């Protein structure tokens, strides 16, 4: 793709501006909004860099879910309208100087990246023999599936902890912003459909369990925002079995394969597609649910008395 | 098998005894006393066995590898035997005394448990075969003694224990650094008759060895209460009387003195120590401590405090003997380890008995006390005369050999120190005796009830140790008297020179 165009430059400027805006924000509200815009620009940057898989997740999670969660925190917490800096942090100055040195090093030293051999060429070669067309999916669910497994664990534990730490759930569930709720209640099913499509095509094209679950979660957030009774009920209880099912299924498949093949998560060629697809389906629902639990528990937690 | 593990059994008798005591209920007085006394008796038998073995040239040595090349090792030689016998006998006697003394006290389980651990640590010190093992038990002793000093749980006893701990842990740190350093230089220090350092090491690390000696000497000296590290001893007097007795006679101060003796004779060797001028350091510190302690003792009205300063002074006789280059000095120093022990424990037993029976703590209240508690005061007098150096009591033998040693080493100033110290000893002990025997008791004070002057638990141990002091003095020249064993030690250490 080569040279940077004016568009890239503008994009980078937009990224840096929104980021700095967030860093220097006058209050939490401004910071959260800057983050929301920053997320949009990031999604564009991913597209520009040819990472469509990431762009989808970033849009749904970075700009969508994260922003929604932080908004909910703001709603409960309220925003300060003044900037809060550590003035007395003199001891931080050496740290800042050190970081400045790092910037300089990064500028000066990193351009001549070494030739990407090793994993890169090994991956390309393995891909050429794999039934999975999407290289990212192949890495995530085959070559480095153990990382993914543990990462699903990270999300599972975070969602569990949030559920256990959130305190009482609000018994009040307000229906707000009718225009938005109308829109979102119609948008949500569409998003869910797109998620299904992404999941299906993730084997070969852009998409996969992460993208699908991110979109599903976004759909869930919209659904909740529209004040649907179903969402309210879901928010009240955390179905740990649903949250954990993807993780457990993934692990059990891996163990079954280990018993058969001698290595954890080693797919026999004839099972590869079926195994990966089933894992992806399980992951899509439980990841989406876990992400939604994060949102729900923060959005609907009641005040402690 | 049993015989070769004898050092282990000797340690285990008091260790296991202590652990059983911890496990017993607080109210189980008689089971506890039984366990305690049984352990002490078994220990004496085992020590007797060991004495017999050592005398007949048997080698009791066992080791356990703690770290590669670094052993926890035990071994019995003439010097350890001397200390072992003292500790074992005095443990039994003190235990009997303590049972009576603490009859109505609280937390006796804790007291007797740690008392046994304290004795275990002392035994470990006596049996150590190398410097690391010595240090190991030296630190253990610190820890096992702390709860004993703090036993009463009052603010004052807490303070005393805290000061004790601060001093001894500081000393332990010095000794730790010194030991580690010496291990680095030599690869390991086994106590060896005549010195453990090779000539090559002495030749190449002269300066470092001087620093290490100072570290170890002052590290051990803290427990031996040498000036300027004596500050903990008078405040630790707050402990119950049996503890003070044990601390002053056997466990703590003796451990320090024992360490210094080991350091000079079996680590550096008497000849290298002399040649490197290290003995001068020891001698000066010892002389200063002797005079300073005696001098301060003059001004104490509290009986236990006066005895404490007396201890500071008396323990340094051991160091003084060590500092004299010559076998006679060695005999004087080494034998005082035992002599001071039995005499001082007599004094403390007597003081404790008086305090417990008549609630008299101050010398100014002691008029005519000899009539009210004749046996106790008689024992006290024996101890006091011994400390002064009166013939026929153990202390005389010490001073006799120290004097001979001074002449032999041509260190005539030591004779001056001895004379001055004896005068001071007399000056702080004789007024007590005068008060006790020749002054009338204040009006309205009754003799104690009929029969024995105090509880037998307290009285008989006092009398027995007094008799032991006399016996050690009268039979100083006999076979197997402390002097005899001290001579064996001296003969070995000066092996080639005599």
């Amino acid at each position, binding site marked *: 793709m080569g040279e940077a165009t004016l568009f890239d430059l503008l994009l980078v400027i937009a990224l840096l501006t929104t980021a700095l805006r967030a860093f220097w924000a006058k209050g939490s509200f401004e910071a959260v909004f800057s983050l929301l815009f920053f997320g949009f620009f990031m999604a564009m940057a991913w597209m520009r860099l040819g990472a469509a898989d990431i762009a989808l997740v970033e849009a749904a999670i970075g700009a969508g879910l994260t922003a929604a969660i932080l908004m909910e925190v703001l709603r409960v917490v309220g925003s300060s309208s003044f900037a809060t800096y550590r003035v007395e942090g003199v001891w931080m100055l050496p740290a800042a100087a050190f970081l400045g040195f790092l910037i300089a*090093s990064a500028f000066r030293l990193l351009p001549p990246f070494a030739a990407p051999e090793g994993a890169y060429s090994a991956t390309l070669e393995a891909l050429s023999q794999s039934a999975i067309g999407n290289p990212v999916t192949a890495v995530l669910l085959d*070559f480095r599936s153990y*990382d993914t497994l*543990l990462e699903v664990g990270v999300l599972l534990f975070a969602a569990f902890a949030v559920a*256990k730490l959130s305190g009482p759930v609000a018994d009040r569930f307000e229906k707000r912003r009718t225009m938005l709720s109308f829109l979102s209640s119609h948008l949500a099913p569409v998003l869910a459909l797109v998620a299904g499509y992404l999941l299906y095509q993730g084997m070969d094209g852009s998409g996969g369990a992460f993208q699908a679950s991110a979109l599903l979660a976004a759909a869930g957030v919209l659904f909740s925002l529209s004040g649907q009774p179903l969402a309210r009920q879901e928010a009240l209880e955390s179905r740990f079995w649903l949250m*954990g099912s993807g993780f457990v299924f993934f692990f059990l498949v891996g163990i079954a394969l280990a018993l058969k093949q001698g290595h954890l*998560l080693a797919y026999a060629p004839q099972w590869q597609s079926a195994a990966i697809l089933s894992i992806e389906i399980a992951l899509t629902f439980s990841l989406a649910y876990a992400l939604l639990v994060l949102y729900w528990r923060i959005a609907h937690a009641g005040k402690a008395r | 098998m049993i015989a070769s593990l004898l050092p282990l059994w000797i340690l285990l008798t008091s260790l296991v005894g202590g652990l059983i005591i911890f496990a017993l209920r607080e109210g189980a007085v008689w089971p506890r006393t039984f366990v305690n006394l049984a352990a002490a008796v078994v220990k004496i038998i085992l020590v007797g066995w060991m004495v017999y073995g050592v005398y007949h040239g048997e080698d009791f040595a066992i080791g356990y590898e703690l770290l590669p090349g670094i052993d926890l090792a035990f071994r019995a030689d003439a010097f350890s035997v001397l200390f072992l016998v003292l500790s074992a006998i005095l443990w039994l006697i003190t235990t009997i005394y303590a049972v009576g003394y603490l009859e109505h006290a609280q937390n006796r389980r804790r007291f007797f448990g740690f008392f046994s651990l304290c004795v275990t640590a002392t035994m470990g010190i006596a049996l150590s075969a190398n410097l690391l093992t010595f240090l190991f038990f030296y630190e253990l002793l610190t820890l096992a003694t702390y709860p004993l000093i703090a036993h009463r749980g*009052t603010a004052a006893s807490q303070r005393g224990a805290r000061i004790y701990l601060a001093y001894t842990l500081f000393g332990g740190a010095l000794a730790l650094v010194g030991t580690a350093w010496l291990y680095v230089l030599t690869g390991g220090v086994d106590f060896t008759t005549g010195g453990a350092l090779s000539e090559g090491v002495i030749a190449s690390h002269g300066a470092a060895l001087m620093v290490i000696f100072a570290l170890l000497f002052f590290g051990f000296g803290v427990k031996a209460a040498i000036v300027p590290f004596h500050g903990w001893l008078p405040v630790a007097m707050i402990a119950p009387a049996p503890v003070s007795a044990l601390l002053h006679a056997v466990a703590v101060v003796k451990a320090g003195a024992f360490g210094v003796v080991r350091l000079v004779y079996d680590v550096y060797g008497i000849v290298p120590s002399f040649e490197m001028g290290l003995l001068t350091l020891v001698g000066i510190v010892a002389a200063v401590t002797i005079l300073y302690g005696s001098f301060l003792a003059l001004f104490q009205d509290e009986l236990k405090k006066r005895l404490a300063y007396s201890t500071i002074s008396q323990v340094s006789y051991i160091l003084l003997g060590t500092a004299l280059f010559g076998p006679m000095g060695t005999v004087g120093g080494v034998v005082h380890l035992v002599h001071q022990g039995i005499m001082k424990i007599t004094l403390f037993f007597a003081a404790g008995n008086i305090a417990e029976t008549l609630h008299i703590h101050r010398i100014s209240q002691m008029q005519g006390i000899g009539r009210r508690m004749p046996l106790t005061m008689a024992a006290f007098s024996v101890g006091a005369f011994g400390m002064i150096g009166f013939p026929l009591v153990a202390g005389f033998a010490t001073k006799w050999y120290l004097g001979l040693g001074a002449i032999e080493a041509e260190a005539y100033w030591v004779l001056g120190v001895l004379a001055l110290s004896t005068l001071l000893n007399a000056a702080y002990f004789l007024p007590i005796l005068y008060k006790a025997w020749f002054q009338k008791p204040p009006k309205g004070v009754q003799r104690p009830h009929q029969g024995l002057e105090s509880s037998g638990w307290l009285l008989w141990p006092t009398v027995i140790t007094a008799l032991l002091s006399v016996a050690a003095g009268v039979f100083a020249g006999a076979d197997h008297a402390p002097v005899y064993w001290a001579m064996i030690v001296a003969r070995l250490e000066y092996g080639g020179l005599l």
Partner: protein
Amino acid sequence: MMVEHTPWLLTAVPLLMAAFAMLSARLAPYLASVSTLICGTLLLQALEPLSQETIIHTLGGHAAPLGIELYLDRLSWMMLALTWLGGALCSLYAFFWFRSTGHAGVAGFWPLWLGLIGGMNALFVSGDLFNLYVALEVIGICAVSLAALAQSREAIRAATNYLLATYAASLAYLFGVGILYGLYGTMDWRLLATLAQPEAPALLAAGLMIAALAIKAALFPLHFWLPSAHATALPPVSAILSALAIKGAFYLLARLYIQLEMPGSLPALLLGYLGAAAILYGGYQALMAHNIKRIIAYSTVAQSGYFFLIFAIGGAMAWQGGFLQLYSHIIAKATLFFAVGNLALAAGSVTLEGIKGVARAAPLTLFGAAMAALSIAGLPPSGGFLAKWLLLQSAIEGGAWHFVAVLAIGGLLSAAYLFKIFRYALIEQPEKRFNDPGVWLGWVVLLGGFISLLFGFVGGQSVAWFDLSALSLGGAS
């Protein structure tokens, strides 16, 4: 047959049990004990093969650099075994503590605790830098959540700071991994060991990773998050966090140092000096503190300093000493936090004033704590004593007199702050009434103290047997 599966099974069992434990709070402790039993067996049966060779498991059948490989060598085994032992003690204590207090935190405790174990086990065997990142995150998420379980305002606040610190550290670590991958095209540390050069980008990456791990291991002055987080958590959690959670990061630091031969004496010296500063600073803060949980928490800052000394002192003996210190600290620190938990139950307070006289109500606890305190203060007989002896000897051998001084002063400081607790506990308060913490809780402390003491006799031989020197000399192949 089973042995080559050990590396991932040690992660799979706790993590799966954690997922199941989420479903039933009642069954959770039993799932935890099943996990403990299985992991113990796995470790035992791996011991024999390990004496000959490293156990390698190629995940998914994809060898590095394409896939991830797990390596279980003797150093890993020691870390796993000590984590197992410390973890089993913590589980035992937690079980009785929750039973006797009925604290609501029990609902979240077991799954998160099992998750933490799974994460640590994953960390100890992982041979891939990015996989290690994910393992660190499992540990981080579980540790932060556990810290927050006390649900008090202070605990939540402390957990927030913990989370922010660990988040920032993770990013720095990840950045370092990315740079290394960009340079050498692999994240497998065995391959990296052969490829890595002391070139500027690699040093930058190493710097970032070291800084990140120093935050997670709470090295002074990056320890700022630790004292509050460890002091406000529930007692079993404090023990887990202090004894185990921070050890993963230190292990990783040591492992990177060994395997990548992280070059240049400067960073190594810096780590050593910071460790020395931590010993003095942590000791001083602990001495000044009035809250006994804070005393023990600051003690962790100080004690962790000893691990870092090995980078500056160097040599096989220092490495043995450092790791022995690590192992002893796991057991001793857990025991001390148990003891503090018991004292708090008995006296209803965690201030020095509040625990006055508590010795009467909790003699077992105090006795066990005393045995553990020996190890922390470096007094015999304890693993801590042997560790400090080895460190002292190696410092003297290397002529590092400033470290000798630090070791001596550090030992005295730790004795001082620990004895402060015992002193207050021993002050007689005849009129004061105490609760009974329950005999089981006391026995767990006693057990911990006993193991801590036992290390004083077997610890030295074990670290020697595991021959860390072979590793520190870069014996990767």
